[in-house]
């Protein structure tokens, strides 16, 4: 597409990167067809091509963000379905990241919106605070419908709805240290404990540690780690996100120095997409650019890593699994076959729900900030999953698990929980009632 930036504008490396992205877009419109918000709302402004154009116009004219632009960028799920579809290789992810930072810097949101975002950014990335908040939510649940009737407080009501009724205690799996193995050591990896996941589903990392230990992989939970920064990154809070990224880079590279590192294992694909992008996010920081690129290269989704370990084929089971590919898995990281092959190899019958490319509406904090669209996408996703008549749903991202669980009675688990069970671990508690 034609662009019109002045040389002075292009001197800003962020603008220069975005200009290169915009130049690649030929406005063919293919991406609109697979965008969940366009499919739901039918307005080009809520499509990738429309958003690209809105961003282009805003950046070219060096204009502060305005309500119209913010409305449509806020509705973007960052699911990156558009990037899978785009034949021209337009990097929408980096463009919309840039736009979000620009919005955060130049646009003053209404008070209620600011409040909600500040709360999310101050709570979610910190497991301790998040656990406390969930306990408070359990007490506050009776007020959910009341809050939802007051427009600016509606997101708080939604948060109460999403909060689980039982809150797990802090898990041993998140305590920093090295998890030793009994047999022969075949490798050494570091793991991302994460922020929201260990509070909502500690079982996931516990299963990962057990499975890897049995496979002879030493796992290090690094000292000084925490949230990877993805949540705030998607809210355009650049400094907070980059600080998180630097902290994680330091933590993992320290593990590497101490005893080598084959991979950084991630069990939430949402985080994986961001960590694999650290190299780009920190490219302008001379002290971190190279180190961040190293970490991005080491980052592996747990299923990606397991696929390299040649697990033995197991006998057929009677259970049928609907595999829900998280957007961050299939579009963000382009991991499409590994999780399904692992599950099949472990004896499960795997089914692909229809419209698999469409987001479930979770998308980080999206289900809290955009509840209407999120609900519609959830209903559509659940319809497609239930049509497979599967016994269990497997997926690789905590956000999807929380979201889909509120829409169906079919138990939903992380792929690694099923694999751990199949390869000698305990049966997941969730599945007690399943044959």
């Amino acid at each position: 597409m034609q662009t019109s930036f002045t040389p002075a504008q292009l001197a800003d490396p962020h603008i220069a990167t975005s200009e290169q992205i915009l130049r690649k877009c030929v406005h063919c419109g293919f991406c609109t067809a697979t965008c969940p918000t366009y499919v739901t709302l039918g307005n080009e402004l809520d499509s990738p091509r429309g958003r690209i154009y809105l961003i282009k116009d805003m950046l070219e004219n060096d204009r502060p963000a305005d309500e119209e632009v913010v409305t449509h960028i806020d509705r973007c799920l960052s699911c990156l379905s558009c990037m899978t579809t785009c034949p021209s290789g337009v990097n929408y992810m980096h463009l919309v990241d840039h736009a979000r930072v620009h919005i955060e810097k130049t646009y003053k949101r209404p008070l209620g919106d600011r409040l909600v975002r500040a709360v999310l950014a101050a709570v979610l990335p910190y497991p301790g605070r998040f656990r406390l908040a969930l306990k408070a939510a359990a007490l506050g649940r009776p007020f959910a419908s009341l809050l939802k009737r007051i427009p600016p407080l509606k997101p708080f009501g939604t948060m109460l709805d999403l909060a689980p009724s039982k809150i797990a205690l802090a898990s041993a799996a998140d305590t920093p240290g090295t998890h030793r193995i009994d047999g022969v050591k075949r490798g050494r990896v570091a793991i991302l404990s994460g922020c929201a996941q260990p509070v909502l589903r500690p079982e996931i990392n516990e299963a990962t540690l057990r499975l890897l230990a049995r496979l002879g992989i030493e796992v290090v939970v690094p000292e000084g780690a925490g949230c990877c920064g993805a949540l705030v990154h998607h809210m355009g809070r650049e400094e907070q996100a980059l600080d998180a990224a630097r902290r994680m880079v330091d933590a993992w590279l320290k593990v590497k120095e101490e005893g080598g590192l084959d991979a950084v294992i991630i069990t939430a694909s949402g985080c994986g997409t961001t960590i694999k992008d650290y190299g780009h996010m920190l490219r302008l920081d001379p002290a971190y650019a190279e180190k961040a690129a190293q970490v991005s290269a080491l980052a592996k989704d747990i299923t990606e890593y397991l696929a390299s370990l040649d697990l033995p084929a197991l006998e057929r089971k009677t259970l049928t699994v609907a595999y829900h590919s998280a957007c961050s898995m299939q579009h963000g990281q382009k991991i499409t076959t590994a999780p399904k092959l692992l599950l099949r190899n472990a004896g499960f019958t795997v089914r692909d729900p229809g419209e698999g490319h469409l987001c479930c509406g979770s998308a980080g904090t999206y289900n809290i900030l955009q509840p209407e669209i999120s609900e519609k996408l959830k209903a559509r996703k659940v319809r497609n999953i239930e049509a497979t008549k599967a016994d269990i749903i497997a997926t690789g991202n905590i956000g999807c698990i929380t979201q889909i669980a509120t829409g169906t009675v079919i138990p939903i688990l992380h792929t690694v929980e099923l694999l751990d069970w199949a390869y000698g671990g305990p049966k997941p508690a969730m599945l007690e009632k399943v044959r």
Partner: protein
Amino acid sequence: MRVSDQIAFLAPRRSVLDRREAIIADLADLLPPGCLVSDIRGLVPFETDAFIAYRQLPLAVTLPETTAQVAAVLKYCGRYGIPVVPRGAGTSLCGGAIPQEDAVVIGLSKMTRILDIDLANRTATVEAGVTNINISEAVMPEGFFYAPDPSSQLACTIGGNIGMNSGGAHCLKYGVTTNNLLGVKMVLFDGTIIELGGKALDAAGYDLLGLICGSEGQLGIVTEATVRLLARPEGARPVLFGFSSSEEAGACVAEVIGAGIIPVAIEFMDKPAISICEAFAKAGYPMDVEALLIVEVEGSEAEMEATLTSIIEIARRHGVTTIRESQSATEAALIWKGRKSAFGATGRIADYICMDGTVPLSQLSHVLRKTGEIVARYGLRVANVFHAGDGNMHPLILYNINDPEDAARAEQAGNDILRLCVDAGGCLTGEHGVGIEKRDLMLHQFSQADLDQQMAARAAFDPQWIMNPSKVFPLEGRPAA
């Protein structure tokens, strides 16, 4: 407001521009919330379609959800003489959906319901905003499909397909949109809702459907379409034929068709196109050939074998260097994915304008060679990827849109190529339509008397010329309003 300096739109009607605020307020009353875009920022993304060389902001964009709402908006616009530009998915390659300053865009993107699937009669009735591929996907489990398959089928709408009488790779055997359309519900300029055709193969009276197909949004707005469904063939297989020159490949196509063999598709790619498509789709196209034909055969194993044997014999006579049959459904899908992504994937290396001239097959080799010469004369590059079986050429002229001189050269080269096609006995457009891009070349193809008759037919539907008025007919020589 930005106005393209390269092409003239009709002068905006002052009476409309002056009433902008009032018009927007009235439109808001006619539509549910969320169905009107009037904010200047929000209008910008609607200023163009997939023909990005030109741009023009509209007055407002409406996104009705029902035929009744389309009728209400049209009735209003008809009453006040406000120009209207219909828009489907905005994938037009000739600027058919580009608005004008005084126009209200009527976008069909919210009308995406599949209304009826009648397998006994082999028809589907859908709203105009349903994408081409969604029709086929809806009937795939039952073993049916909708035949015309523009490369943009993932995104383009059936309404847009009717507007442009679109074709695609598989139209060689199955015909283009007009051969597969059975009926429409359509709203006229004054809000009147009419129905043409139906579920039967032929309708009584004049073939008005044939007139509607390819009318580029100038006769009315289609809100529902009934199309013909076909049963999937027993088997289908694309085969790659590599040649050491474009001329040989072109001559091979002419001889295949001349021999009366009609495969389902014969697609052509030259070397630059092959490398562009391979970079995106990794389909395993041969990279050591100058030209490639994708020939698809279908039917029973025996039928496919028989057709292939005769095509291979002809190809050998034209010095084919590589023959590769796809071995699996996945491979076949990749071969088509690469081909169908060709235009979009070109964005990886350059901006492009896509020509759409059609030539008699006997002229294919000659026109290919001349095209190369024309583009070279302007100091530009070209990639050729097109529906060879029906002689529908798509030279992609590669250029740098950020360089005004380059852009002007590309436009001139494009005009020269289209004239070449017409002079070779072909026509300006095979399937993309005239739009605004080829409007001023119409006199190269038609005499003024021809155009007068066409405009008279147009005026019978839209006497005020409010429907997509800047397109198709040269601005000069129009009847006085």
